[in-house]
């Protein structure tokens, strides 16, 4: 809430470093002939984007959604469905022609995600705490089974985009680095927008409602509209992440909307720490990085991963961000 209280160096390390890592790592991978690693980093950027959108409503708004995978899947299907119809040259839903360009599919994913998030947010926000978590989960499960039942789009198997990913303003995006750059730019853009909104009156109202809703009403605020708005913005951004994921994998399936994906996003947010939005980027780097490394060593990686996460969260209270902040706190005298 008070970025001015942080020294520049602290912000550079906490906020700049993970972005720099995401920008440089794929280039380094290419340099050592390990180009197959690039999508691993792109995945991190995409999950960071989705987790950041969740971070926004969770840390400021206090909304713990265990249903954000639904928006991830919705965004993915906006790409998959449009792409299939564009290839088949058959009309898409609502009689629209198929679409296969990111200039259409990404804004469309945002719009559809945000639109569906409005009633979801409205319903979920009638409760708080554990009930809020359960309702978001239930609504997301509804979307999951809806996608499974979509026979025209592969049902459980989803849509394999073997004809290739979306173009960007007509340009082919077959180059992995180009796609990575697109994801990174969108991540940076989302970060900029979300941090401005956090500092703006809009963010203050959300923050105030999380801390004391009764007082907000007594002051003359009606927080519900703000909360639904934030939930919709968050859902829209997660859908954009899902749309990017579809392009990375060239494949969409109901699995994008599985509840474990919602759980993964929550783990990323908590792992990265609630102190600043950059926690989402740290969390994605650490979680997806660990997954990748452990998978190299053993197929039972999940057995190691679980306890490891618990240790990290316990050891680094406030997540990676909080850990970095404390490291820097110790050195504060030499900043002065």
């Amino acid at each position: 809430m008070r970025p001015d209280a942080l020294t520049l160096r602290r912000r550079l390390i906490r906020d700049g470093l993970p972005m720099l890592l995401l920008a440089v790592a794929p280039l380094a991978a290419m340099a050592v002939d390990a180009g197959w690693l690039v999508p691993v980093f792109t995945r991190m950027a995409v999950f960071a984007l989705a987790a950041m959108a969740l971070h926004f409503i969770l840390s400021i708004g206090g909304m713990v959604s265990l249903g954000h995978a639904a928006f991830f899947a919705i965004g993915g299907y906006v790409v998959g469905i449009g792409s299939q119809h564009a290839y088949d040259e058959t009309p898409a839903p609502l009689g629209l022609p198929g679409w296969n360009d990111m200039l259409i599919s990404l804004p469309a994913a945002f719009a559809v995600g945000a639109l569906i998030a409005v009633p979801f947010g409205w319903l979920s926000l009638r409760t708080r705490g554990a009930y809020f978590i359960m309702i978001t989960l239930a609504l997301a499960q509804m979307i999951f089974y809806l996608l499974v039942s979509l026979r025209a789009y592969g049902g459980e198997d989803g849509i394999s985009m073997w004809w290739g990913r979306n173009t960007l303003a007509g340009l082919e995006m077959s180059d992995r680095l180009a796609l990575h750059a697109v994801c990174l730019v969108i991540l940076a853009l989302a970060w900029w927008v979300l941090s401005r909104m956090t500092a703006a009156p809009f963010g203050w109202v959300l923050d105030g409602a999380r801390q004391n809703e009764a007082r907000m009403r007594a002051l003359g605020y009606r927080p519900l509209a703000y909360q639904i708005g934030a939930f919709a913005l968050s859902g829209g951004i997660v859908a954009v992440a899902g749309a990017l994921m579809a392009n990375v994998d060239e494949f969409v399936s109901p699995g994008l909307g599985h509840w474990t994906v919602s759980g993964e996003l929550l783990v990323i947010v908590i792992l990265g720490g609630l102190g600043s939005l950059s926690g989402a980027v740290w969390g994605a780097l650490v979680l997806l990085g660990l997954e990748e490394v452990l998978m190299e060593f053993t197929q039972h990686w999940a057995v190691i991963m679980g306890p490891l996460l618990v240790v990290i969260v316990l050891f680094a209270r406030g997540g990676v961000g909080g850990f970095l902040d404390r490291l820097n706190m110790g050195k504060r005298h030499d900043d002065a």
Partner: protein
Amino acid sequence: MTTPDAPVLEARDLHKSFGALVATNGLSLTVRTGQIHALIGPNGAGKSTAIAQLAGSLRPDAGEVLFSGHSVTRLDEAGRARLGLARSFQISALFPEMTALESVMLAVQAGRRHHARFWKPASADDSLLEPARQALYTLGIGHLARTRASDLAHGQRRLLEMAMALAREPRVLLLDEPMAGLGFVETRNLSAVIHALKADMGILLVEHDMDVVFRLADVVTVLVDGAVIASGPPSVIRDDPDVRRAYLSEDDAC
């Protein structure tokens, strides 16, 4: 707007029950601009319940609430706040993670219509900053502007509670035991602040400290078991036999 003695907030025959318990039983009272109207009564008399119904956080079973002569019975709490009604809570209701200054800025902002809601950083908005600082200084906690609410001492929290209520320059102020837990000096200072405020607004003051009540109040209403047993100027109330029996006697006994 600030005509002295104009009724600004009125309760007409309010009734409220919680199950079998009658918490408000035919309450009528009038708060006038330029007056401090004290609402007193023993514990559980229904004072806080009355404030909640006036503020709009609790819906009466029957009766009317009027603001400047217009019914606001169906208006929610936020709507009444926007008309110019402010309250302080008996138990401090603060934003624990915000500084004192940020809390009051949020209060000031609630009254604003035209500002960049989504984009401009609120912390840099001088039109919020200045009135917020002013409110903190008025209550003598200007030096605590940068302290988080959760780090404030009890008395300071009470004062921040007040600062948030008066920052919007309300037309009616509902104060639920603002002095509770304050020390002697703080009580005296806050009394002076409340006394100075009444020139521009109507004040409903719930207070247990009888010295404060009889020093500040222009009108005193005595509530017992949700019903008004007496209402009038302090000098009359002090000598009212019913009041002495029902209420003040127990106070004397302490």
